[in-house]
């Protein structure tokens, strides 16, 4: 890795000091990213500074957001919900990813298909499935009420719990894939060697597998956080009337109140939060990777 970087930075005769070569493949994806994402988002960001009387640069909309306790509560709820989902997804995805990376059993393909298949069913459908299961008169509560274990339905939906369950399910495949690529990159000989030297299964996991899969853990946390924070359907369907997060609030501002500058403010805050996380995450990942390779 180090040798590659030094050669690419060394000036070569007849060429620009920093070679453009490595950047060339980025041209087509950048083009579409710029025109269909960056420029429209720039427009959105500009909109967030637009005043109600046509001013082009005012902080009025941000002021409106930060002086409204309901909106602030939505901001914190977004962070809490996404954080919880990120942890749940990573914890649940880990055993599956480990099994998929190491198993030689014929069941492996079945497990893999099962782990990824939910992605094909679409978010709204799966969330609807959870609603049927978790509702006050849904499957779980019906069974529990019928068995006499409870007298009142358990509050499984229309709250944070329901949303976290639903979102964990929605995001899980991405967590599994992130961890899988990372665990597959760990040399199985390390585990075998440790086993031969008498290490217990538990200490192999603690001392070898977990530390070496840190990049995968970080990327799973990151992708789960990001996807949860911008998810709309699941919090809207499973969260109930009082459960407002930034994504559902954005929908409301765009489609119901038609207050686009306010929607833009929320979008910008979400973007800032996520970009910060993504940058910190990739930084930590790169640093840890360096440390572990040397």
């Amino acid at each position, binding site marked *: 890795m180090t040798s590659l970087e030094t050669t690419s930075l060394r000036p070569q005769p007849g060429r620009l000091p920093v070679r453009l070569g490595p950047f060339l493949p980025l041209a087509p994806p950048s083009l579409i990213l710029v025109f*269909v994402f960056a420029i429209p988002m720039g427009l959105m960001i500009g909109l967030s500074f637009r005043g109600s009387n046509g001013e082009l640069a005012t902080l009025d909309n941000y002021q409106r957001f930060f002086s409204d306790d309901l909106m602030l509560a939505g901001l914190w709820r977004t962070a809490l919900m996404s954080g919880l989902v990120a942890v749940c997804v990573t914890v649940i995805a880990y055993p599956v990813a480990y099994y998929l990376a190491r198993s030689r059993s014929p069941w492996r393909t079945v497990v893999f298909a099962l782990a990824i298949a939910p992605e094909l069913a679409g978010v709204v459908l799966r969330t609807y499935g959870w609603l049927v299961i978790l509702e006050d008169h849904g499957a779980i509560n019906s069974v529990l009420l019928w068995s006499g274990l409870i007298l009142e339905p358990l509050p499984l939906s229309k709250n944070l719990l329901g949303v976290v369950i639903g979102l964990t399910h929605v995001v899980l495949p991405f967590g599994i894939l992130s961890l899988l690529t990372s665990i597959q990159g760990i040399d199985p000989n390390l585990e075998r060697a440790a086993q031969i030297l008498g290490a217990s299964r538990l200490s192999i996991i603690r001392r070898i597998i977990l530390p070496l899969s840190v990049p995968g853990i970080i990327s799973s946390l990151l992708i789960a956080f990001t996807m949860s924070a911008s998810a709309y359907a699941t919090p809207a369907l499973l969260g109930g009337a009082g459960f407002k997060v930034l994504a559902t609030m954005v929908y409301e501002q765009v489609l119901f109140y038609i207050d686009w500058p306010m929607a833009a403010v929320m979008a910008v805050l979400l973007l800032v939060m996520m970009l910060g996380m993504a940058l910190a995450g990739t930084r930590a990942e790169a640093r840890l990777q360096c440390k572990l390779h040397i």
Partner: protein
Amino acid sequence: MDRILSLCFRLSLFLILAFIALPILVVFAASVSPSAAISFDPSQWTLAWFAELADRRWLDPFLLSIKLAAAVTVLSGLLGFLAAYAVAYQKCPGHEAIMAILVSPLAVPQIVKGVAIVLLLSSTGFYSLLGTPGLVMAHIILTLPFVVRMIAGAMYNFDTSLLKP
């Protein structure tokens, strides 16, 4: 000790798979239930809803979805491969930051991306792009982060020294 651990591992794996399958089973039951109320009694199940798919009312949107998916798969796969190649394989300078930028569309709720694209197209007069071409472009933005992440994840593990003479 190791046997208990292995047992726990298997049990947790089983529970997780049940968790994954549960809502899908509910959706399946809904698709074969005779009425809007979901029935878990297989003797009542019917394929009548699937037969409705042949109706033009459902078939047209269904075909459009497939067309859209096909176009987006090809384009997004190609663009994602190029980006991942530069970032993960060639490790171009600043690749961590570039990766963060490439996956940044994920951080924006779909409604914001959607409205932003529509506002851009309609404020610059590209009305003809509203509709299917706009949908294809927007879906590329939607899917590109996943493609880049997946391909880059695999490429990070390549041993580049194998390619040196």
